[in-house]
Every structure is written in structure tokens, then in C-alpha cells.
């Protein structure tokens, strides 16, 4: 199901190339000034503190200067999170101050490897006080409300942290062409709970010392799953290898893992608004051209953009080809 969009883009690509003697020219678009909005990228997972990254939107053709990335991040926000019983105030913590065990999550939010964090400019994110006070850690089954006050604006969001559903097993499936013995698909056997409305998001992480590979958690190109088609059933299905969006589509290796890869699968239960956020975002990113129209990313943030999501995550590790 997830790969359907991929297929249609392949088909349309084929058609376009075959039939359309199209030509491309650079143009200048005269766009009206857009209102700058605050963007929330936040998560809470079981046993983990919440992390929130505040950035702002920037005009496509305008002031954004990649050399001055720090300007992109929003500082001095007052953020509180309510877990249904108490309010917690978040503090601003810059990358260098972040304890090592939380670096991976920060890297995930930024979409970069943990190693490259050190080369990052001094940017900051918001979390609960990790060094003292009353620590807020995610608890499945709870609903979290966040309220953000910054630069005269108030943003709010609510998310439910669902219970994790771990796969029954994860295993490698050989390439359908027996001649290709170095590539494998990641498959899972999965028992879906007997209620409709379960949504999931997954990421994969890959190490392979012999190939000099150490990737962070990358979400699948189509990273979210709806249980409508297998509600309450035990099913086997494959998950494509996560990759950076800029990596493109390599026909021969897309989705596959290599023999010897150590794969960590992160599979998280999510609620419907979080599912909608990622599905609309990925759909809009994957479309374009004459045959599609603008898909507005569905956000659960009132007063801003982005997502604050509860991820009921479980982790499994597999060494491919063993």
C-alpha cells in the first residue's frame, strides 16, 4: 500500500519521458510576502522526556541564509506541558549541554547523524529539566497538552501517546532474484490489536562496520501505516529501508538492506492527527508536476505549523543475512 505512490510516480515518470518533449526554463516568480510562522517539531516517547524544536518558516525566495542557521531557531519561548495531572515547564537546552543519551533523539529531530551534531552551530531545543526537579517522562495511555508562548504568540497542541505494539518477530527476506544474494528486505510479523484506528510510523537505522556505514534513524519514504487493511490480524509485510529524502530513488537498491547490516527498527504507535501530519507531508513531498495539486500539511498545532506527537515506540534489532 505504502509503495503505491512510488509506483504511480514511476509510471508517470515513464510516461513523461516517453511522450513529452518537454522543456524547462528558469523563471522568476513574483511572490507576495508570506507571513512568517512558528514551526513546532516535538515528540514524546515512553520513558523519555519531551523534546521540542522551535523554528520559523522562511520565504522560498528571500532572506533565508543557510550560513546563518541559528536565526532559523526560535529562542526564549515559554513552554509548558500538561500530562493530565500536572504542569511541567520546559527549559531551553543547547546541543552542547545535552546529555549523551539524548543526542540520538535530537539528531533524529534534525534529520542528521549524531556525529554531525558536533559541527552544528549552537542551536537549542526545549525539554524538561533533565538535571533536577520533577522529571516528566512519557507514559503510554496519557494525553499531553503543550502550550507555547513566544514573540507575542501562543501555540497549543494535544497528542495522545498510544501503547507500543512490538512486532512478533522481525526477519530478513532474500531478494526475489536468487542471483542477487547480497540484498535483503526487512520483514516483520505483526499482530495488530483488535480495534480499528491503529496507526504506526517506522524508522530504520543501519550500521555496517565493514561497509563503513553508520546511519541515524531514517523514517521510511512512506513512513506511516494505517491498520484498516489488517485490523486485528497477524500479517507479514516488508518495510522499505529508511533513507534521507534527498537520497533519491535507486531502482536496484531502493528499500533493500545489505548482508551484514545491523538494522534497528523503531516502530511507534501514533494517533490519527500525527498519522495525518506525516501522511500529508510525505504525500506533498512526493508529488509535484502537472498531475497533482497542493496538499496542505495537516498540523496538530493551533496557531502554528508542525507536529507535536506521542510515539509509542518499540525497538528491535536484526543482523541481516545471519
Amino acid at each position, binding site marked *: *500500500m505504502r*509503495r503505491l505512490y512510488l*509506483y504511480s510516480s514511476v*509510471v508517470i515518470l515513464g510516461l513523461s*519521458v*516517453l*511522450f513529452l518533449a*518537454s*522543456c*524547462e*526554463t528558469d*523563471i522568476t*516568480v513574483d*511572490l*507576495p510576502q*508570506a507571513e512568517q510562522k512558528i*514551526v513546532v517539531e516535538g515528540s514524546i516517547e515512553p520513558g523519555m522526556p519531551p523534546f521540542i524544536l522551535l523554528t520559523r*518558516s*522562511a*520565504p*522560498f*525566495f528571500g532572506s533565508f541564509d*543557510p550560513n546563518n542557521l541559528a536565526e532559523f531557531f526560535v529562542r526564549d519561548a515559554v513552554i509548558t506541558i500538561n500530562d493530565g495531572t500536572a504542569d511541567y515547564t520546559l527549559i531551553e537546552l543547547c546541543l552542547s549541554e545535552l546529555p549523551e543519551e539524548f543526542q540520538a533523539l535530537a539528531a533524529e529531530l*534534525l*534529520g*542528521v547523524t549524531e556525529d*554531525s551534531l558536533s559541527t552544528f552551530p549552537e542551536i537549542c531545543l526545549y525539554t524538561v529539566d533533565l538535571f533536577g526537579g520533577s522529571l516528566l517522562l512519557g507514559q503510554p495511555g496519557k494525553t499531553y497538552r503543550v502550550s507555547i508562548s513566544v514573540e507575542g504568540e501562543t501555540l497549543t497542541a494535544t497528542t495522545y501517546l498510544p501503547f507500543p505494539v512490538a512486532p512478533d518477530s522481525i526477519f530478513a527476506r532474500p*531478494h*526475489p532474484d536468487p542471483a542477487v544474494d547480497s540484498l535483503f*528486505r526487512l520483514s516483520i510479523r505483526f499482530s495488530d490489536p483488535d480495534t*480499528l*484506528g491503529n496507526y504506526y510510523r517506522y524508522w530504520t537505522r543501519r550500521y555496517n562496520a565493514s561497509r563503513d556505514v553508520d546511519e541515524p534513524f531514517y*523514517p521510511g519514504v512512506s513512513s506511516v501505516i494505517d491498520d*484498516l*487493511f*489488517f485490523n486485528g490480524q497477524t*500479517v*507479514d*509485510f*516488508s518495510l522499505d529501508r529508511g533513507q*534521507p529524502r*534527498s537520497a533519491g530513488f535507486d*531502482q*536496484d537498491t531502493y528499500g533493500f538492506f545489505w548482508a551484514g547490516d545491523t538494522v534497528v527498527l523503531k516502530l511507534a504507535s501514533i494517533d*490519527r492527527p500525527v498519522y495525518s501530519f506525516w*501522511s500529508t*507531508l510525505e504525500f506533498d*513531498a512526493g508529488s*509535484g*508536476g*502537472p*498531475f*497533482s*495539486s*497542493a*496538499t*496542505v*500539511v495537516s498540523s496538530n498545532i493551533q496557531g502554528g505549523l*508542525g*507536529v507535536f506527537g506521542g510515539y509509542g515506540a518499540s525497538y528491535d534489532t536484526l543482523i541481516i543475512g545471519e
Partner: protein
Amino acid sequence: MTAVRQGLIVLRPIAHGQVPASLLVNSALLMKAFFAVLLVLSWLVVPAQAQTRYTLSGYLKDAGSGEDLIGASVFLADDPGRGTVTNLYGFYSITLPAGEYKVGFSYIGYESQELLISLQADLRQNVSLKENSILINELVVTAERTDENVQSTSMGKTELSVEQIKTMPAIFGEVDILKSLQLLPGVQSAGEGNSGFYVRGGGADQNLILLDEAVVYNTGHLFGFFSVFNSDAIKNTTLIKGGMPAQYGGRLSSVLDIAMKDGNNQEWHATGGVGIISSRLTVEGPLVKDKSSIMLSGRRTYADLLARPFIKGTEFEGNGYFFYDLNAKLNYRFSDKDRLYASGYFGRDVFEFVSPDNDFNARIPWGNRTATVRWNHLFNDQLFSNLSLVYNDYQFEVGSTFEDFSFTLFSGVRDYNAKLDFDFFPGEKHSMKFGANYTFHRFSPYSANATDGTAEFSTDSLNQKFAHELALYVQDEFDVGSRVRVNVGLRGTWFQQVGPYNQVIFDEREIPSDTLRYARGEKVRDYYGLEPRLSARYTLGTHSSLKAGLAYTNQFIHLVTSSTSTLPTDLWVPSSGIVEPQRGIQYSLGYFQNFLDNDVETSMEIYYKDLRNQIEFEDSYVPELGRDIEESFVFGRGRSYGAEFLVRKNKGPLTGWLGYTLSYTWRYFDALNGGERFPARFDRRHDLSAVVTWKVSSRWTLSSIFVYGTGQATTVPLSFYLIEGNLVNEYGPRNGYRLAPYHRMDFSATFSPDKRDDRPRAFDWDLNFSVYNLYNRKNPFFIYYDIEGDAFSETLDISAKQVSLFPVIPSITWNFRF
């Protein structure tokens, strides 16, 4: 009324599982109302007959082929204002006081005839007209052509003959009726090279497109770049943009009525053509001379065959695409009173892809099928009837496998339709039409099956939808005094969605919580509509008139598209508990003036349209196979208004037209664009087309087209933000950005060998040279932002690109006939 209503309620439990019962009650109700209206109308209008009157009636035919002539004029030569036109089957009837008349018969492109008729009893007079073979500067006019455009009550109605279209330039040399229609004021193209069209600010689904009375749901091949209508098989095309007469309904914007050729009932002929991307062949001839004929026509593209050697060994090897059309028609004339027609269309597009290593393959066929059986019966000289039985369907399929993942998808719509129409000609200045039209629809939204390893996924739980649609109509055209002619009509419609149907109920978290089940034939929801239609003509002078029109329309089936083009994946959906019928009203006003002996026609029309229950996808729509598509709709209102100007020259060596449209098309949706009004994507402020055809000599015909249109409205992202390090679009106002204006000039030259005399040659041919986009204008097809690099590595580079589709394209087509 109340009694019947109660009857309806009492019957409901019985009707459970028995569709016809409720159907009959509803029809009976509508019928009653209609016959009442019918009676009143005929009583009101039939004048007291002081003199003995007789009826002159018959068929108008092409002398060479025996084809019926549709919309040909029959008039009194001494008083051209008095007359009638032939109907869809070439039949005319006019009732006049006893006496001697000089009667003219004329049709565009044919030599007119005049007959001296002594009307002392009802008279049947079939007339055959000869095709014009006028040589340059030798105009032969045997009778004055009537100024039908000025005299009739119809507004916004245009006929295009295939002959006219054939000399015009065409992209890849493919003559296309729908693209030619786009050159008329008020009709807009759905995009560069696209055969889809929008009429007066209405959506693509608001055009009723009929091929021999069968609805054609998807008119495009290859994403709409070519229409499904093979011009060799087509006889006549009529487009009604406004003031839709009551005989038509079910769509808000326009009617495009296309008649296939009947086939030559005099002698066998073959016509065909060889072009750069496709070839055509049509064979027609008499089965029994004068009584029965047959026509078979086919067309196939061969781009896939041509491309195969070039893509061999490349990564595009395995790509294949072609389309084909087949048209067939058979008719038998039992007598002057009875005639039977059977016609059919079958067309398919097939796209295939096989990746070189055979990992991924896909086969995607789609297309329409229609079959029509019609029986014309003449009850008497004044009452003509036609019974049609129509089957039509549109299907779209995907079959694909990718390694161990396989996927099939099916969607489509299928109709069974029965139609009974009467033409009644009670007097010289009075004609009526009435009839009934019933359709049983079956809609198949996406039904998908997928296998991934051992897991199987199926949407079988997502049901098809079924519906009844019934319409009864009556329309009456009559003169009031010498200057005013009125066409008044009423159409009553009833639509009912019936089971089997499972309606999924969602809770506040948008999670399916319950299912409402309807049994087979059980009513899910029904809708009624009463549609008054009115058009009137007021004669100002001998060659000028003023017209006004008013039309209420209801549309019960809808096509909602998320794309900026018309695509084979677009789905038709019925009105239901969630989707209410689209309702529209159009007011129009026109001034018509002819000059130079009706050689030059001019018109100016203004219109205002109010459209309710318009449908769009919600802002954040993502196709979800597991959800009923209705759940993703939002509803709003549309408004459009504009003015259309046309100058058209029909006779002589130099013909053509100049059309200009000024229009505004707005949409108002609470759930879109923050509740602010926004332009429809086909909102086009200025639209200009010029068409010139010059018959230079008996050998050469030159033709040229120029079009100019305001740029397409589109939604573009104004700003971006970062999520997981990736750029995400933040869109500006809906359709708030205009692409660059569209303009283009085409040119064609047609050469045909010299004819020594008037007689048709045993083997006739012509060669058409066509140049599309003569000055190589880079018209925008779409724009996109090219994003390179990465926000976090100081390499981000964003640029805007415009993609243009067709550069200058020369083509050559060879046409033959023997």
C-alpha cells in the same frame, strides 16, 4: 399529492429489496405532474384553426451518402422567417395552411434546394442535398440561407461540422473535435494540448457529453491529450453552452451532442489517414441500398512501435503505450415510419511498463465502451418518436507487481439507460418535445487488492454504489406575435442511491466505529429536482435579434479531481447521504446580428451562473484506499459571469471566426482558503481565439489559428519550513498565482489534387501539413521549485523552473478516400 406521498411511505417496507416498486411510484408522481403541464401547454398554445392545415414532413439527406442531415433548415423561400429545422435523425415537419409554397432546404456546406410545393393534403417530401463543390469565385446560391442563428431561440449553441475542423491545423496532425470546440468563446481548454474543456466557469464534470445518446464519462486518451472521438466516424457536433433545453439534463454547464455517421447507403467507400502518431481507417456502405448501411471505423496510435527500437537497451525499455478506438454503426430502414439504429464505441488506452530486470511491471488499461440501440417511429406526420436503449461504461485498471508485492486496482462507472423522446409538431409556429429518461448507475470507487509476501490486503469491504436516476421533461417552442418566439420547458428529476451499501460511521477521533448496512435495493437517500427552462428570442430587424435564457439544472453525479488536469484516475461518485446534488442556475442575454446576406454572423452574449454544492477535495487530501472518497470532500459555492463576443464568416473562400471572452469564475468554500473566495483553477480573465481558413485554389487550402489566454491560476508555496531537516511547503492562497499567459499560433496547408470535374474521383486523397506552435512559444505547463543541497550543510539552492510541453511541432498527414 398527499395520497401519493402516503402511498410512497406505505410502500417503503415492501420496496425493501424491490427497487421497481418505489421507482414506479416516484415515476408515477412525476408523470402525473408532467402530463398536467403538457396538457396545459398544448391547450394554451395550439391556436384556433380557421383554415385547413396540412403537414409537410420528411427527411433531409446527403445525396451522395444517404446520411441524415441534422439541424438543416427548411423554410419558406418568400418568407425565410417561417420555417423549421431537422431533428437529430434528419426529420422535419411543418404544418401550414393549404396552398402553394416555394420551400427552401439548406444546410451548411451543401447546395440549397428550392421546391415548389402544392400543399393540398399531408405531404411526405424527402429531400437529398448535394455537397458543395464550389470552386473559387464561383459561388452558387440557389436559395437564401436562413439566418438560423438569429431566428432560433437557442443561445450559446454552436455546431461544428467535421469538414470544417479537418482543414484546421492540429497537433501531430490529429484532427480533434474537442480541441476545435475550445476555440469557441466561453469554452476553455483544460491545459496545453488537452482535449478536456470547461464551459463558462463550470467544472469538467459539468459537461454532458453524448455519443449517439450514450454518455461518455472520460473523453481523453493519453491524459487528455487526444479525445476519444475519431473524426472520421463523426457526422455532427453540437455544443450548447447556455439555455440548455429541457430535453437535456443531469449536468450543470453544457451539452455536447455528437452523432456518429450512419454509413453510406448508396455505395461502398473507405476513408482513412496515415499520420505521424496514428492511422485511421473507416469503411462504410450499403447492406441494402437505400434501406440499410453499415459503418466501421478504427484508429490506433503506434508511438510505442516506433519508439521500441530507440529505447531498446535504455532504462526505458519495457515502456509501452498505445490507444485505439473502434466505432461501429448499423442502421435499417423498415419504412419511412420505422428505422432502427445500432451503434457502439470501444476505446482503450494501455500503458505498460516492465523494468529491465523484471522486478517491477505494470499494466494499466483504461477506456470507455458504449452501445446504443435506437428505434425511430413516426406515429404520424406530426409526431416523431425515438426509443433508445443505452449501455455505457468506463473502466480504469492497474495491475502491477514489484518483487513479491503485487497490486491490482479497479475503478469505473457503468450505466444502463432507457430513453423515450417525442417530437411533436402541432403547427407551423409551434413544436414540442417531451419524454422520459431512466438510468441505473453502478459506481465502483477504488477497489484494490494487494499481496505482500503472505499478507493480503483487500478493499472488498468498500462497496460499490448504486443509484436510480429518472427525468421527465416537456418543452414547447412557439411564437407569440410576429417578433417573439419562446421555448419553455420543465424537467423533473429524481435520484436515489440504493443498497447494497455499507456506510462507515467515524467517531470524533476519525476512527471507524460503526457500519450502517443497507440491503439490495434499499433506499439510502433520494433527491428531487424541478428544473424550469426558458429561452426567448425577440426579433429586432431582418437580421438581428435579442435573446434571453434561464436554466435551472441539477447534477446528481460528480467527478472530483485533485489534479490540475483531467486524468483517467478521476472518479465519478453519486449523490449520497453526504454528497448533495450540484444545483445551478444560469441567466444569459444575447444580441445577434448578421451582415452581408447572413454571410457574417456576429453575437454578443453575457451570462451569470450561480452554482451550489460544488465539490472539492479538502486542503489536506491524501488518497486513502481504506476510506470512502466522500469523507474527503468539502462543499461550497461557485459563481461565474462573463461576456462572449463572436464574429464568424461561413461562406466563400475565406471563412473563420474571431472569438473573445471576458470571464470571472469564483469559488466560495468555508473549508478552503480560510473561507476567502478564490478563483477556480480554470478562471481565465481574457480568452481570445482566431480561426481563418482560406481556400486559395481548388488544390490548396490554408488555415491558421491564434489563441491567447490569461495564465492559469495555480497554488504555489510561498515559504518553507524544516521538519527532520527536510523542506516542507507552506502554500500561499489557493490558486493565487498566475502562470504566464498562454498564446500560440498554428498553421496548416492542405493539398488535394486537381479535380477535372464535379464528379467524385475513384481515388481521392489530400495531404495536410500542419505546424503546431509556429513561433515556438514556451507556454507554461506547470512550474516547480528546484531544491538542491541541504539546509544544514550551507548548500541550499532554490530556483523556480517552468516546464513547457510542446515546442514547434510540424506534422504531415495523408488522407484518402475511395
